[in-house]
């Protein structure tokens, strides 16, 4: 339960956060699920739609190739955006599986790009790129934008996780200071 003095002065509300550690875990795993667990259905649906929608749109722009995990000895192959994309939770977890198994259990879905020269046929002509990542950057116009969208989805879910764990940061009076916070001129009597 939130303490009463943390409440918005314009309304009376009590928010039951229940087991907030579990709510935070759920909020990470599935955006909005932590809030739904707490009975905060409106916000849960809002977070789910906004965060998953942003993530899905990013995947669409990048033709499904923008979320993958890659690390190793060569720093140029490290996929740093994944550090933020994993903030979305379960939707980004297949990339971890794909990165750890050479057999690629999910096919090419969220799989890291293949190394070495890659040749494809485009418009009847054979085209070779230095590696599959270079091919994606050349062939997919929305690759960078899709990466940005999925990263932002992960960051937004971090905010949602904090909200599930600690409740909202209430404004008091819509940004105006309360009367007892107003500075008083020197020598005036307090009310």
């Amino acid at each position, binding site marked *: 339960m939130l303490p009463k003095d943390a409440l*918005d002065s314009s*309304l009376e*509300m009590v*928010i039951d956060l229940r087991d907030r550690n579990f709510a935070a875990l759920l909020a990470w795993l599935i955006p909005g699920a932590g809030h739904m667990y707490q009975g*905060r259905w*409106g*916000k849960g649906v*809002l*977070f789910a739609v*906004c*965060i998953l*929608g*942003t993530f899905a*749109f990013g995947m669409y*722009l990048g033709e499904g190739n923008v979320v993958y995990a890659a690390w190793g000895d060569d720093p140029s192959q490290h996929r740093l955006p994944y550090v933020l994309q994993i903030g979305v939770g379960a939707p980004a977890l297949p990339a971890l599986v794909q990165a750890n198994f050479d057999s690629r259990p999910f096919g090419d879905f969220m799989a890291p790009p293949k190394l070495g020269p890659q040749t494809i046929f485009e418009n009847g002509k054979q085209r070779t790129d230095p590696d599959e990542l270079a091919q994606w950057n050349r062939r997919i116009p929305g690759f960078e*934008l899709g990466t940005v*969208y999925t990263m*932002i*989805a992960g960051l*937004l879910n971090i*905010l*949602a996780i*904090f*909200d599930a764990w600690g*409740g*909202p*940061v*209430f*404004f008091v009076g819509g940004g105006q200071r309360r009367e007892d916070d107003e500075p008083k001129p020197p020598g005036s009597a307090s009310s």
Partner: protein
Amino acid sequence: MLPPLLLALAATKLWYLMPLVVSISLVYAATRHELVDEIIKHAIRFGIWIVGFMGVVFGLIYFLSRGL
């Protein structure tokens, strides 16, 4: 002729900003309030602030780059 064309091409990508502004505004506002009315009001104010700030930065960069 070329600079306005390039600007027009770049501007079409700016439409991709809109879903992001909506999403970020709503999620940020939702972390500040609990009631949907308050969330939407704050999200609208925040979205306008984002677009306005970016507009100011755009104007500044455009003005500074005019002599280049």
